[in-house]
């Protein structure tokens, strides 16, 4: 995977450590970095308010996206239809499709 050209990062006025944060923060927040890489970012962010602000911003964003997950239950009509479909396939557990719903 190729990294963004160094001059693009420098154009933003970033130090090498800040540039690493910009490039790898999502990997860090997703727990995809090696322990060494994660430590390097953590150490830098502890002393850089700009990168800490950026990290807070991205973490808040990911938390907001995670909160989008809503509880959408399959409608009763779908469960009825699915039960009928499985019954016609010869599935003996077709009634459990309805039961699961009533058990909430």
């Amino acid at each position, binding site marked *: *995977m190729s990294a963004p050209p160094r001059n*693009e990062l420098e154009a*933003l006025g970033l130090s090498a450590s800040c540039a690493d944060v910009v490039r790898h923060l999502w990997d860090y927040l997703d727990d995809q970095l090696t322990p060494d890489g994660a430590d390097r970012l953590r150490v830098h962010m502890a002393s850089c308010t700009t990168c800490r602000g*950026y990290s807070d911003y991205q973490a808040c*964003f990911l938390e907001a996206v995670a909160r989008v997950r809503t509880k959408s239950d399959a409608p009763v009509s779908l469960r009825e239809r699915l039960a009928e*479909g499985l019954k016609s396939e010869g*599935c003996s557990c077709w009634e459990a*499709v309805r039961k699961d719903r009533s058990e909430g």
Partner: protein
Amino acid sequence: MDVERRDAEFAREALPWIDDVYRFALSLTRDEADADDVVQETYLRAYRSWHTFIPGTDCRRWLFTICRNVFLRSRERQRPTVDLEDGEQDALAAGTVYEAARERGYGDLYARLDIGPALREAIDELAEPFRSAVILVDVEDMSYESAAEVMGVPIGTVRSRLFRGRRLLQEKLASLAAEYGLAPAAAGSDR
């Protein structure tokens, strides 16, 4: 495997995930009637091919894979091939979006406001395959590895699609914030 045992396994492993599969199908189709069709087809296929499910593995992930394939086939887009930028380019672009947001005073937008409804709308508007990547990893909390299996692509591709999806979402939200004049309230507050 005898039929009775197979059906008992199917009931125990697959049926508890109907609501999850429905929610995923709804995220993909953005239409309740279409989601119903996709879920119906997903479960019928799952039942017919239950012998291919490996006991002890993640049945929810297995069902999501079938669900996404059913959805793609219903759209006659079996294997979307989108030309992707490198994931790190999107990470860089997201940094630029943040800088612009900070300069305009809404660098703390996500902490300050309930952006749920706007975010949901923005996710719905994301193009495939970025929408799937965001939904699977960020909304459904799947690992990159699981999402890669569901999407049938390498992990690196999930990462690229995810980063692109996130960047597009942030651009959309920043643009909405500017449109609704949210900037002045926090101008200069996070410098």
